């Protein structure tokens, strides 16, 4: 018992160390890439009318004239303390500036995931149970069509069909008022939510379908069926238990896809979220904002993967044993 607990603790510690390591690597890459972006912020702020002296003075005020390594450790230290830094473009803390945007995107991604994940599992399992059936074909066809279109094309088509050209049932843009709770402006977010679900759903459904189908044709399921166990029990007890761990990874991937995909979708709908915030920061070369948001998103994804790993572990005891361990 004690040994098993120790093993679990060791596993957790190793995982945590890997997570922190990954985050450091991501942070370093993000820092270097943003530094390498052509064009600089003082020039952006002062515009084409700026003189060299004005640019030099502003660079000094912003601390951009210090050695890169000093800027790096100062920023990293701040991130480790949970301090996202101060936006260079506006002079306000990134947390204050991006707070409402982070909340808005988190809300959208959560709602979209809450719709997408159960729907994808329901559809995927239903399709897998009848390979070659109508649902199976419909899903494969839709996946093919939707995956071949960029998110923004789907978003634009939705706007044309549901808001501006054919039916006039929904507002075309989602320019939320940040001073009013998002649920009080729910009509604004329907279209972007539909767009997010439509773009994320097919991929996950297809993955669930494939995993379940593979599982249903596996040896142990065949054995269970031959033993006369009812199909319903075969599905829930024998097949799905093994489907959960790989599917969790795909679920996290889907959430990551939703977070990434919002950049395109937020732009189409002028939704004031983290995606359009990031796009704005890139345009103004507000490097502290870009760095902090990028690392924050990476941290959320890495944490989600860790959670998925941990949950998966509960379902697959085998994985807890050390590699090449005793049987």
């Amino acid at each position, binding site marked *: 018992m004690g040994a098993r607990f120790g093993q679990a603790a060791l596993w957790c510690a190793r995982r945590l160390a890997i997570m922190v390591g990954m985050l450091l690597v991501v942070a370093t890459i993000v820092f270097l890439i943003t530094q390498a*972006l*052509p*064009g*600089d912020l003082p*020039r*952006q*702020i*002062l*515009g*084409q*009318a*700026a*003189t060299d*002296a*004005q640019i030099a003075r502003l660079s000094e005020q912003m601390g951009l004239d210090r050695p890169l390594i000093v800027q790096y450790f100062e920023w990293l230290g701040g991130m480790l303390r949970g301090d996202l830094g101060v*936006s260079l*473009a*506006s002079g*306000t803390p990134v947390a204050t*500036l991006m707070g*409402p*945007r982070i909340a808005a995107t988190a809300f959208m991604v959560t709602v979209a995931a809450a719709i997408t994940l159960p729907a994808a599992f329901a559809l995927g399992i239903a399709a897998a149970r009848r390979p070659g059936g109508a649902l199976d074909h419909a899903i494969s066809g839709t996946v093919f069509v939707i995956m071949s279109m*960029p998110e*923004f*094309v789907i978003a*634009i*088509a939705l*706007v*044309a*069909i549901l*808001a*501006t*050209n*054919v039916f006039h049932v*929904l*507002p*075309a*843009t989602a*320019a*939320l*008022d*940040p*001073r009013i709770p998002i649920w009080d402006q729910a009509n604004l977010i329907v279209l972007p939510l539909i767009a997010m679900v439509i773009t994320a759903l097919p991929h996950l459904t297809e993955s669930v379908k494939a995993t379940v189908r593979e599982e249903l044709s596996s040896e142990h399921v065949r054995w269970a069926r031959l033993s006369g166990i009812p199909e319903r029990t075969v599905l829930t007890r024998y097949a799905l238990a093994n489907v959960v761990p790989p599917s969790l990874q795909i679920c996290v991937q889907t959430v990551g896809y939703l977070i990434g995909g919002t*950049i*395109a979708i937020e*732009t*189409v*709908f*002028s939704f*004031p979220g983290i995606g*359009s*915030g990031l*796009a*704005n920061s*890139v*345009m*103004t*070369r*507000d490097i502290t*904002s870009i760095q902090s948001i990028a690392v924050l998103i990476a941290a959320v994804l890495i944490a989600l993967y860790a959670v998925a790993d941990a949950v998966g572990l509960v379902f697959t005891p085998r994985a807890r044993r050390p590699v090449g361990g005793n049987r």
Partner: protein
Amino acid sequence: MSRIARHMTLRRAIVLALALALAGCSQSSPNTSDSSDAADAADSTATDGGDAGDAGAENGDTEATGGTLRVGLASLSDADATDPAEATTPGGYVLAKQLFDTLTEFGPEGTWVGRLAESVTAGDTADVWTVVLRDATWHDGTPVTSDDVIASFKRWFTEDLPPAGSLPFVDPDGIQRVDEKTLTFNLSYPTVVFPEALTSPLMAIVPQDFDPANPIGSGPFTLSSNDPGIRLTFAANPDYWGEGPYVDTLEVISYADGTSETNALSTGQIDLAANIDPTLIDVLAAQSPDSGTFAYPTSGTLTWAMNVEQEPFDDVAVRQALRLAVDRQQIIDQVYNGFGRLGNDYFSPFDPMYSDLPQRERDPEAAKQMLTDAGYELPVHVELTGAPNQPTSDRQNEMIVAQAAEAGFDITFNKVDVATFYGDAYGTYPLSLSYWGYAGIFDQAAMTIIKDAPWNGTKWNDPEFDDLYVEAVQTLDESARQELVEKMQTIEYERGPYIVPIFVDAIIAHSPKVSGMTAYPNTDGPLGYNFNLLRLAA
């Protein structure tokens, strides 16, 4: 970033295609105007510039007051400054115009008029100017005084803020208080540019104890809330000295681009779409036949700057040949959907002294001949650097590539994003597209082409032109000045460094409830950002 930018262009194409295709599904298709109609409509507002306000007023209740006016703008940014002297973004200009007043402004006629100043008059020579202020109050109720004006000017110079660079002739120690409402400016050298140079929103007057965190001004609105990059909310200043404001609340909402603004307008989410892309007018007509558009010609231009320190533009023959290669009318028709005016390679068409030189026409054969005569082997290779600094920039750049190919040029278009464009390499591009204008002849020259001009992107330096400039800005007699100006513009026409192919129209789309639309042809931004003039019917 470039991926996003590419999406934008592709998006526009898709939106257009979808909107026009789907127009058949909606009832609005009969109202879809073709581009020539749209251009004619613009012409009609254009010809009676002074009455332009009436064109908008027809659509709404001219007596309406109150309500919340929602304006869509592409785009607000985190970098929008509440300090007018540091405004460089559309959002910064919006803030400057609502919260503050400049001493002078370019009025609806395109010439300068007093704003916070009741009068600005030269003495016997152009180096002494007297400014008399109106009776105006700050938002906190205290009066605007000469001391505030002096403090505003001194602040620009002691803090080295951008206006200082545009006012080389102002000596901050030469400003004298005469009384509470009167000041005398003793300039470093005589210039008639003085009143025009004060029209920029950056030169708004602020109180002596100005604090950008709590921006108190004398303008038509006060700032109620500021969500950077998302939304600005203003409340009417009931004690404003000037016209309006007629609405109680003004909301300026950030949209990613004109397409989103158009969509928001058609679904009633905003009342006014600030400056939309000319190609979106057809989309809007298909989506929302009730909405109106208000277009007027401006002095704004997307001009090609030819760097005379770089080959091959160090040779005047190449510059003139490229000017001949450009088909200006085709650019207006195809890039601007008819919403533009012909340019003739010099600036400021709303300046009363704008010269009437023969319109340069496209002549690719003559261009080739010029190049060959100058000893060039065809085609002449040129690198063009451009960024989407305006929605039409990329398309205008693509157009010159095609047009110049028939005139002996081989232009490579190096497309970069805006931040890169204005980055370290700015000023070194052999050929690039810049957004300029909204200034009088002298101010435009002072900023861009005279000796030591702060933003001389073309590095052009012509002593004969400089001498004429110096003489003209000291000449108070108007007819004598006019003669000198014609000589200046002739030099620009014959050997200048800019191709000024077109002047763009400002295009505002609005709901039928909005009235009070007024053209400000010499001011950047929709209606010169004078939202205090707008009314909203219930």
